[in-house]
């Protein structure tokens, strides 16, 4: 075969894939680069965010563990965990009713459930602030207000994951349990709940992450002393860009990453993000 024909064949078959791969590498660099750069910057010895870092020091990390940053971090963790629990607790009956029953107003309920997903979070935040102010609940801004807001915006995620796991429920398990003499409550407790456990856990994890990384709602409902870490970082960004921020940013990235890694180990979280057909 001539060189020319070999080249033509390469161009027709292998080359497009090679070009695609090169482009994919570029996209990964674009997508992960800035995050890696942030991590690198936190080890600067100078007090500016230089990249590549000049010198090596851990003093920015030391500062990142001062109360100034640890307090909002703990606040975010507390808020995220409680949001996850409340949002999934509310989502469970909602998802179950939507999946199990056909009733009048079901479509309206679906729209209501997914509403917070459609509406920009920022707008919900402004509305909630207005509601709280008009009701004279100024004291409730901060943790309580944030919890209410986060539960509202995180519930759709939890309803979705629970619905996905309800749909994978073998069709006749409930009837089987009932025919063996289990009451409705016992069936729910001992048959349905254990089977949808993964979905509930996944919903909780999504709710936590959504709450932990939220900015758009939190900027309106936070108040001094009761501020999530994201809002704290954003407030600080307006004054300066010390490498401490880079260290803090990396810490806030590690928290959800560790959570997902642990939960993925225990139950297949990946199934809910990608590859639903693997279970079907």
């Amino acid at each position, binding site marked *: 075969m001539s060189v020319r024909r070999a080249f033509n064949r390469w161009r027709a078959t292998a080359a*497009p894939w090679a070009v*695609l*791969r090169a482009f994919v590498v570029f*996209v*990964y660099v*674009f*997508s*992960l680069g*800035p*995050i890696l*750069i*942030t991590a690198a910057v936190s080890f600067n010895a100078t007090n500016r*965010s*230089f*990249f590549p870092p000049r010198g090596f020091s851990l003093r920015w990390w030391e500062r990142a563990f001062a109360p100034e940053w640890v307090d909002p971090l703990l606040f975010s963790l507390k808020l995220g965990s409680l949001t996850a629990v409340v949002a999934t607790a*509310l*989502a469970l*009956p*909602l998802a*179950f009713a939507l999946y*199990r*029953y056909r*009733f009048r107003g079901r479509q309206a309920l679906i729209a*209501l459930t997914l509403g*917070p997903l459609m*509406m*920009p*979070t*920022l*707008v*919900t935040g*402004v*509305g*909630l602030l*207005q*509601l709280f102010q008009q009701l004279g609940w100024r004291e409730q801004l901060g943790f309580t207000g944030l919890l*209410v807001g986060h*539960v*509202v915006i995180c*519930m759709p995620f939890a309803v979705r994951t629970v619905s996905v796991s309800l749909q994978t429920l073998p069709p006749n398990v409930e009837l089987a349990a009932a025919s063996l003499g289990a009451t*409705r409550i016992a069936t729910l407790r001992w048959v349905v709940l254990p089977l949808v456990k993964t979905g509930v856990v996944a919903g909780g994890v999504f709710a936590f*992450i959504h709450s*932990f*990384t939220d*900015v*758009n709602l939190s*900027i*309106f409902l936070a108040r001094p002393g009761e501020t999530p870490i*994201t809002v704290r*970082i*954003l407030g600080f*960004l307006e004054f300066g*860009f010390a490498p401490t*921020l880079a260290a803090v*940013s990396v810490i*806030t*990235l590690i928290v959800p*990453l560790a959570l997902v890694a642990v939960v993925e180990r225990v139950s297949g979280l990946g199934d809910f*993000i*990608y590859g639903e057909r693997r279970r079907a």
Partner: protein
Amino acid sequence: MPMAMARARKSIPPLLIVALPAAVLLAFFVVPNLLLLSASFLKSEAQQLTTQPTLDNYRFLLTRPLYLEVFARTFTVGIAVGVLDLLLGFPLAYFLVRTKSRWKGLLIALSLAPLLASVVVRTYGWYIILNRFGFANDVLLGLGVIGERIAFMPSTGAIIIGLAHALLPYAVLTIMGSLNGINPHFESAAMSLGADRMRTFLYVLLPLCLPGIAGGFLLVFSIAISAYATPAILGGPATQVAATAIYNFIIQLLDWSLGAALAVILIAATLLLLYGAGRLGERRATL
């Protein structure tokens, strides 16, 4: 079975078990949004909302060049970010769906991992790269492309790059979902019938995953036009977008009427667009 179902329906009425979550959503989602809508039609005086109905808020926002510019910038950013993320996300999604690599799972996880970081964190990296003494300036100076340091930010371009970066995983996820449903044999069939890669892509693959592409664009667009953090960090007072303008009205100027009206215009424009896209989708489906 029907009897059991009928009995079950009687024993636990669905309205009872959904009462609590539905009440929470009504009280803390529907009511706040209605309040906001009503505030946009009320007059503000001395930083207080009055009960006087008016259309002046909308008239003010839709006639001042400053705010028309804000709307234009917001939608330019939304469209640019949407297009950019499709151009970057489609090849990546296609690769991830079709690759036979051993590392497929890891590669998918890596492409979605940025979703775990807050937008604030993801944008901070771009600040380090784009600021006057940042990495991009260093590289360009070192290469001799530029003679002196230039300010890449604050600018609309920086906002677009930052948001395209932050929202890329949403585009990838949506397109991957639709590519997953396309049988790879369609492509081999087209090629064995003599179509080259380009024709196969244009006439087979692209039409089949158009819903995924449209969905990805709309998702990215709608998040981009209401994003606050990235424009706040990479933009400045001269490059306001709708979200930062709303924040200024409400938190800095305490003008609820104008803030609310701006939010309503933003939502109305988005809904109109989504509705239009939906209609377009239907038309395509019937053809």
